[in-house]
């Protein structure tokens, strides 16, 4: 009995201690010079969808939910954001080479088609990030247009 108490007490102490280790927040207020909106046109309805369903992990601006104030939730989320940004960062899209921009747009298209994005583990909590059929179609059209306009840009 004594052993269990000791372990529980130890865990509690650890829990309290880790509350002081907060990672830096993924927030930048201004629009970056390499933002995707500087490269291709992003209509406001598309922007709205990207913001609610993609930008939390794929941009330099995350809307943090309430539970990140408690560790280790913030760490988990931070990991997600880091790997999401490494894969695709809409705020840095302009810094990619033209070939890579095309590839990224194609990958967006593919992940929309097979439904692998947004991640299920993400939409489980962020119900409003689930894309409706019309929203998906809107995004797909936008990706297609962006691909064409980038193609034109690179050949002129």
């Amino acid at each position, binding site marked *: *009995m*004594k*052993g269990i108490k000791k*372990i529980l007490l130890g865990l509690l102490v650890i829990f309290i201690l880790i509350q002081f280790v907060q990672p830096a927040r993924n927030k930048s207020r201004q629009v970056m010079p390499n933002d995707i909106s500087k490269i291709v046109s992003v209509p406001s309805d598309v922007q709205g969808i990207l913001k609610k369903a993609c930008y939390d992990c794929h941009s330099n601006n995350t809307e943090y939910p309430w539970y990140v104030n408690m560790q280790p939730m913030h760490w988990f989320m931070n990991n997600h954001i880091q790997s999401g940004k490494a894969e695709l960062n809409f705020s840095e899209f302009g810094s990619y080479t033209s070939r*890579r921009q095309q*590839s990224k747009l*194609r990958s967006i298209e*593919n992940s929309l088609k*097979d439904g692998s994005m947004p991640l299920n583990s993400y939409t489980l909590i962020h119900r409003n990030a689930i894309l409706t059929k019309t929203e998906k179609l809107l995004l797909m059209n936008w990706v297609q247009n962006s691909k064409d306009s980038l193609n034109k840009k690179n050949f002129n």
Partner: protein
Amino acid sequence: MKTLIYSSVFSLLFLAACSNGSNKTKSTTSADAKVTTAVASGSSEKGTSTAAVLASYLKLKNAFTNDNDKDAAAAGNEMVTAFASFDKKSLTPEQDKAYTDIYDDAKEHAEHIGANVGNIAHQREHFDMLSKDMYDLVKLLGANQSLYVDHCPMYNNNKGAIWLSEVKDIKNPYLGKAMPTCGTVKEELK
């Protein structure tokens, strides 16, 4: 007494976990070592630095014709190492710029193929984009061997896709064993 039991159980678990972990790292490092030696021997001669990249690409292509996602992943990882050991010093500034553009994209596709065992459809999506990069790379720097540019008209909802092959016979990497001979030779690179 109980504390003693608990602590010994914990330390046992801990030890078990540790030994597992070290075993794993051991096996991966030996695999890595194999890859690096293979790549190093390929790039030891002058002018063969694209050869290592190309060799791993062809391995990748052949894995897809056999519908083998594990071999594809291994070849993808090999390709990442081959790209990393590619020597850019002999390139002209223009070549360097074009190469960097290709490399930036191709390395990422190779990484994705390496990381997606069990999802061959996803691996093939990246192989499609990677093949275009490889085509441009060979056009840019040459290959030291003759290659065939093949075209599969059906892949990606009939949008079609190309691949590079070392043999003239069509062996389709996009449709695999389902339609092995679907496609045509579009171009011959020497």
